[in-house]
C-alpha cells in the first residue's frame, strides 16, 4: 500500500464511522509518513507498520462514539442534578455570606480602632474611656481585624474550592451518564504556597495572642482606672441603671 492509498483508505473508513476532524487526523498520519520517509523507509513498509486503516478508524470511533447517542440518560441525569442544584447552590451562597459577615467584622474593628486612636467618635456611638484604655482597645481591635481578614481569606478560599469540587462532581455525573471519561474529583483544600502558609499562620498566632492579651489587659486597666470591677457601670455606659 502506498502513502496515498493508505491515507485515502483511512479517510474513507473515518467518514464511514462519522468521526470528527478527519483532516486533523490525516495530517497526523501524513506527518508520520514524512518522518519515516526521511529515515529511509519505503511507503509500503511504513503503511504496513502503521496497521490496518480500518482498525485505526475503529479506534478513533471508539474514542469519540459514546458522546453521541445517550441523550435520554443525559436528560435524566440533568434533571436529577437540577433538583440537587436547588439545594446546593443556595447552600453554597449561604457559605459565602459568612465571608461577608467576617468582612463586616473586619471593617467594624478597623473603624473602632481608628476612632479610638484618632480620638474620633462617629455619631457618638463609642463609649468614652481614658486614653490608655482607648489605645489598648484600639490595638485589640486591630488584632481582631487581622483575624477576621484572614478568616475571610481562608473561608472564601475554602468555599471556592467547595464550589469547584461540586462543579467537577456535576461534570463527572453527566460524564458517567453519557459514557464519556470522568475526571479526577476536585480536592477541597487551599492551594496556599507553603511559605505564604507559614507566614499566615504566624500572623494568626500573633493576632490571636494580641487579641486575647489585649482583651484581658483592657479589662484590667479599665477596672483599675475606674476603681471598680464592673467599670462599665462606673462610667455609666448603659444609662445609669446603678446610679
Amino acid at each position, binding site marked *: 500500500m502506498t502513502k496515498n492509498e493508505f491515507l485515502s483508505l483511512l479517510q474513507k473508513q473515518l467518514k464511514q464511522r462519522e468521526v470528527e476532524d478527519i483532516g486533523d*487526523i490525516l*495530517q497526523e*498520519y501524513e*506527518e508520520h509518513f514524512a*518522518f519515516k520517509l526521511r529515515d529511509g523507509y519505503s511507503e509500503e513498509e511504513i503503511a504496513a*507498520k502503521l496497521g490496518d486503516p480500518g482498525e485505526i478508524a475503529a479506534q478513533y470511533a471508539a474514542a469519540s462514539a459514546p458522546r453521541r447517542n445517550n441523550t435520554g440518560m443525559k436528560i435524566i441525569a440533568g434533571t436529577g442534578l437540577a433538583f440537587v442544584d436547588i439545594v446546593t447552590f443556595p447552600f453554597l451562597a449561604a457559605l459565602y455570606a459568612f465571608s461577608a459577615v467576617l468582612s463586616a467584622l473586619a471593617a467594624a474593628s478597623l473603624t473602632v480602632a481608628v476612632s479610638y486612636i484618632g480620638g474620633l467618635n462617629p455619631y457618638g456611638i463609642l463609649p468614652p474611656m481614658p486614653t490608655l484604655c482607648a489605645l489598648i482597645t484600639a490595638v485589640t481591635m486591630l488584632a481582631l481585624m487581622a483575624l477576621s481578614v484572614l478568616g475571610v481569606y481562608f473561608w472564601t478560599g475554602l468555599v471556592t474550592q467547595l464550589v469547584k469540587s461540586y462543579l467537577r462532581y456535576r461534570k463527572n455525573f453527566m460524564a458517567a451518564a453519557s459514557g464519556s471519561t470522568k475526571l*479526577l474529583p476536585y480536592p477541597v483544600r487551599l492551594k496556599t504556597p507553603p511559605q505564604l502558609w507559614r507566614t499566615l499562620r504566624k500572623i494568626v498566632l500573633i493576632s490571636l495572642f494580641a487579641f486575647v492579651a489585649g482583651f484581658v489587659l483592657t479589662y484590667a486597666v479599665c477596672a483599675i482606672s475606674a476603681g471598680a470591677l464592673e467599670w462599665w457601670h462606673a462610667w455609666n455606659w448603659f444609662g445609669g441603671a446603678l446610679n
Partner: protein
Amino acid sequence: MNVQYKKGVIELCVLALLEHRDCYGYEISDTISRRIDISDGTVYPILRKLKSDGLVTTYLQEESGGPPRKYYKLTETGSAQFRQDRAEWLQFIEAAKAIMEDDENDEK
C-alpha cells in the same frame, strides 16, 4: 499479549512521556514503538482520546525548514491523573509479580 490490554498501559506511557516534556505526535509514537511491540498507528488515536478527555492540549510550533508541528502538552488534570494512575499501576504490577512468582515457587 492482548492488544486491548496493552492499550491501557500505552495510554499511561504517553502521559509519562508528556510529563517530562511536550512532544509532537511522531516523537511519542516513535519512542513507544521502539520499545513496545505495537503497530505504529496505535498511538495517534490514543492522543486524540486523551485530548478529548481534557488530559492533554495541543499547540502549533514553527520548525526551521518545515511546516509547523503539532505539540502535545499535559494539562493540570492530565498531570494529576497521571500521578494517580502511575501509582496505582506500579502497585498493581508489584502485586501481580509477587503472585506470579509465588506460583512458580509452588510448582518447583
